[in-house]
């Protein structure tokens, strides 16, 4: 299981990684492994503003559909269109090519409330 040390994590297993003035959002390696093969990802329209903790989409694995929650509130500036043709990118490279959103945060301080890599690692049983 890998944990991106540069990202911060929500209890619902989404990560948020500051990249310049934007935040990259996706799900953790632990989450993708728990879900199993991901076969569909539904993402919001670009330009939509979504509050922290609200659902921004759905990830469907072979087993089940799971809601995705905003780790930080903000406006969606980009979604990963590649996931439409190849949702398994989330399984293969969740922190890289399997990213989901780029968000312009309404309040970057919301990142500080999220768990850092060490704290998140502890909650999912990783050293």
């Amino acid at each position: 299981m890998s944990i991106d040390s540069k990202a911060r994590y929500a209890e619902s297993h989404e990560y948020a990684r500051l990249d310049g003035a934007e935040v990259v959002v996706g799900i953790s390696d632990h989450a993708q492994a728990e879900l199993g093969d991901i076969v569909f990802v539904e993402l919001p329209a670009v330009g939509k503003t979504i509050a922290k903790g609200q659902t921004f989409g759905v990830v469907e694995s072979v087993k089940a559909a799971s809601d995705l929650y905003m780790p930080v509130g903000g406006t969606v500036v980009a979604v990963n269109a590649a996931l439409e043709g190849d949702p398994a990118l989330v399984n293969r490279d969740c922190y890289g090519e399997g990213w989901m959103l780029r968000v312009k945060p309404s309040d970057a301080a919301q990142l500080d409330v999220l768990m850092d890599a060490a704290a998140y690692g502890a909650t999912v049983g990783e050293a």
Partner: protein
Amino acid sequence: MAPFAGFDMPISYPTGSVEEHLVTRRSVGLFDIDHMGQIEISGPGADEYVSRLVSARVSDMVVPQARYSLLLDGEGFVLDDLFVYRMPDSWWIVVNASNREADFAWFTAHAPKGVKVIDKSDETYMIAVQGPRAIELLDAIGKPAVSTLERFTWGRIAIEGVPVLFGRTGYTGEDGGELFFPAEKAEFLWKHILDSGAKLGIETMPIGLAARDSLRFEAGMPLHGHEISPSIKPLESGFKWACDFEKDFVGKEALEKLAAEGVTRKLVGLEVTGGVPREGYDVVDVSGRKVGVCVAGMFCPTVKKYAANAFVEPGLTKTGTRLAVLVRGQPKEAVVVKRPLYVPAYRR
């Protein structure tokens, strides 16, 4: 692991169910299906008795044939689907896990004096070996060769001294077979088949329940509790072919009545865009009126489509009919498609 009819069954192995599905389509998948039940029927009058209880024609069956059939109740509902094997002095009937006890009780309750109905499930283990290279693998490790057997026939072979009843049958849409053998040899044979695959350079992988479901779904095979069930009649799900109306069988009158009146719902395949359809999701027409419900739905790894099987009003079954499936309340485009999505290898 997930509980399934009293068995702990792997949903998927570490490889993941999509890869398991694809391996079965390209090489060999190994399925632990010991949850399936086996019933042996013998004695004077057994032929007539089996013929009356199962829907398919069996009177013309000769050794070593095996045939798909349904088991219906008096109202024409599907108690189970099964495989009937014509043995020299008996019938070997393979039933679904969740129905094993009910089927056995049904067979026992209807048996006339002299007919012996024996549940052989506990002493019999069942493994399926499926895929385009399955027969090659089995020929390499067992004697005599199974490649000489036709589809839907059986033979007796030995693998490393283990006596195996081999049926050239399966539930994946691929060539291969199903192996019945003494339960105490299960672990040995399972490992031996996997090891032999590795040794011979024939990619062979254990397959869990999720891929078993997607393989059968693509190939258009029914799963009890979904396309067929005790609340579904075979004429509704396109199984008239498995009912022989030229003979007498339990449920026949009810089906003839239904055929005369016309069914009120029919099973169709739907290809869905923009979401994953799943069991229980409603089907609506272009105006948003509910016209049916999905009984199974998933991502299909070989054809790379999101698809469902749904019961809809009989006027909406034509290929190309535009409908929608409500995926978490949102209508997603659905079009009626020809089933199966994947034509079984042995039918091409």
